[in-house]
């Protein structure tokens, strides 16, 4: 039972440590259970029965930033929320990634006014932007898979520079 049945008897597999680490990171990425606005409902839908994001190793939404390594900024970020969002980001253990879900989080969307940050990338560094208002759950899943691609290409050297 298990992986041997699918892959056959592979015996020894050789790979680089980098590949191995990145592979394990992508297959157990825990997003933070944290929604801001409309997109949070679609994020919930992506977790729920029809779309089921746990197929990609993401069934575990952690309510605490200290246990999560992916922050999905789902919705518009107001000027009052900005410092809180930053504090949550700072509390996440490294390595950490951010997905800006939806137009409001990516660029302010329709709310071009005094109260909203024009893109959450003014507050936290963003890895993947997902377009849509709100993005469909498929779009979010695509965004997550895009992030996986990015993580798989990371090298230790980059990490060393990024997180000193």
């Amino acid at each position, binding site marked *: 039972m298990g992986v041997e049945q699918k892959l056959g008897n592979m015996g020894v597999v050789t790979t680089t440590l980098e590949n191995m680490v990145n592979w394990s990171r992508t297959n157990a990425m825990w997003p*933070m*259970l*944290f*929604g*801001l*606005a*409309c997109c*949070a*409902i*679609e994020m*919930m*839908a992506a977790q*729920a*029965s*029809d779309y089921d994001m746990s197929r990609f190793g993401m069934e575990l939404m952690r*309510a605490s*930033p200290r246990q999560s390594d992916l922050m999905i900024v789902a*919705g*518009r970020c*107001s*000027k*009052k*929320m*900005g*410092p*809180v969002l*930053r*504090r*949550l980001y700072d509390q996440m253990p490294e390595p950490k990634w951010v997905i800006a879900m939806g137009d409001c989080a990516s660029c302010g969307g*329709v*709310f*071009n*006014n*005094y*109260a*909203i940050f024009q893109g959450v990338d*003014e*507050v936290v560094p963003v890895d993947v932007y997902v377009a849509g*208002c*709100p993005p*469909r759950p498929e779009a979010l899943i695509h965004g997550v898979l895009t992030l996986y691609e990015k993580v798989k290409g990371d090298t230790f050297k980059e990490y060393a520079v990024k997180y000193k």
Partner: protein
Amino acid sequence: MSQIEEVSVDQFKHLVSERALTGETMLLNMGPQHPSTHGVLRVLLELDGETIINCVPDIGYLHTGVEKNMEAKTYQKAEVMTDRLDYMNPLGNNLSYVLAVEKLVDLDVPARAQAIRVILVELQRIASHMVWLGAFGLDLAAMSMFLYCFRERERILDIFELVSGQRMMTTYIRPGGVWRDVPVEFDKAVREFVQMFHKRVDEYERLLTRNPIFIDRLVGIGYLSVETALQYGVTGPNLRASGSDWDLRKARPYMGYEQYDFNIPTRPEGDTYARYIVRIEELRESLKIIEQALNKMPLGPVNSDNRKFVPPPRAEIGVSMEALIHHFKLWTEGFPAPKNSVYSAVESPRGELGMYLEGDGGPKPYRIHLRTPSFDNLAVLPEIVKGHLVADLVAILASIDIVLGDIDR
């Protein structure tokens, strides 16, 4: 970007008891990032052991500036903002705004458009209650409710996608009618959904209504009397669970609600369990309305033919110069509205959703105020959680069904 301010007790001195200042009771911060606050609500709790003595909600973490932003857009363009206001109920918000605009400029809507609007808004009410029920179950540790409810909600969103091309933010209801007629598959899709959903509501009830754990956690928790509710401006299912039968669909019928036969579910208990029962009953009543509206849906146009406010159909633009001019004028300038104000309200899944709309003779609204139900429903929270445990706060907060986008606007 401003930093998080260090808050001292001095700022809240008048809101907490004397004992908090001496350190006898504990001040606990809950939120803005907390799974059971349904968004970015922050609550400051004063606790004596595990009993809540005082509760100070802090809102504004999702303040979007919708009102100011709508003043900068024409009447048609401002509508997209209303979708994103209360994101569980986009079509209901559209309807509220559109009714205010129609009242301001005195525009009539064809009967078919009214029926379509009623069907969609009632579907939206079900979808909203589905998210509520799912989250309510989740907060009370009934995980499977969440999965079941979202399964049904997806079917409703499929219908929205069928008619408008968008799942959530449809902006389908427009001043003077709807965006375009519903496709031929609409009737069948809605009927299938209604048929299926009757059984599903029974299924939810089998799971929850007589569940002993569920009852233990809800009965007698968070009592709200009808006088307190009215004093705090609480409307919608929360008010009806306290015994009042105030429902704007019956009291001041709009969109032809007077022709449909439905009941207003009420409960006298006023506790968290009553609020749950009322919402479940509302699901069935909504289904009744949808069925009747489907059967009665007349044929005919879905948009007013007043070309000063409603853009002409695409086919007309090619053959009529006048239509072309109207089209151009409407999309570049918008339509003017009289210099006066109206207030119109609809019954959203959460209560009275009112729009105060003021025109100044130009194509842009001079002032819009959104009277959002969650704002007042949350204001009553400090009153009803006093003396309960922290775990009960979660149940009460879930039962009053707040949406932060609705509160902070």
